[in-house]
């Protein structure tokens, strides 16, 4: 994740949204890069992905999109699937299981 600030302290509402969504899925162990610390990184990552804004989410080295795309993937279930492909079991699946048991 390339973002403004850090997961512990995001400095932008869009970056924070990415952190919160990942957290909902139980994903907290990822590399986060604060582009505010490094102007070359800030421009470089935009050139690399040909994407004009921050935050940028990469899964397994592949560019997935920004905050809007991650939110839609979260809402339509795609994020759970993508995490599964990476061998990550989304925490939301366990939450659902608990609900079904009730």
């Amino acid at each position, binding site marked *: 994740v390339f973002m403004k600030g850090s997961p512990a302290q995001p400095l932008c*509402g869009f970056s*924070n949204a990415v952190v919160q969504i990942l957290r909902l899925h139980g994903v907290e162990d990822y590399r986060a890069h604060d582009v505010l610390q490094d102007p070359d990184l800030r421009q470089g990552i935009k050139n690399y992905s040909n994407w*004009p804004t921050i935050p940028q989410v990469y899964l397994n080295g592949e560019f997935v*999109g920004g*905050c809007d795309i991650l939110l839609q*993937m979260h809402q339509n279930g795609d994020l759970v699937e993508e995490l599964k492909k990476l061998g990550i079991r989304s925490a939301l699946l366990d939450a659902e299981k608990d609900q079904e048991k009730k």
Partner: protein
Amino acid sequence: MRGPLLAAAGGAMGGAGGPLARTIRAKLTAALQPTHLEVRDDSPRHGGPPGAETHFGVLVVSGRFAGLPLLQRHRLVHEALRAELAGPLHALQVIARTPQQWQSDPHAPPAPPCLGGSKR
């Protein structure tokens, strides 16, 4: 008529909006022939003075998006606004739906609140 994106923002657009808003609207209309388009200036919510025109949200409903994954849809929108994004447009929220998707769900999520950004 107020669309959901404007209403969610508390929509104080007051007419066509500033020059950048009009440019965004014109370019997206030309590039994507949308059946529904909302352009929202979020700059006041990010600490800018009124009329700053730095942060925008756009909701684009267009048949051009059919069959395209989200990433490609967003890239089409970015492409249409390439000059603006290289210049004054600092942030852009994008919702890109096909007419069918919009019809089955004519609601847009609100933009996340600002947390200071690089001004801190």
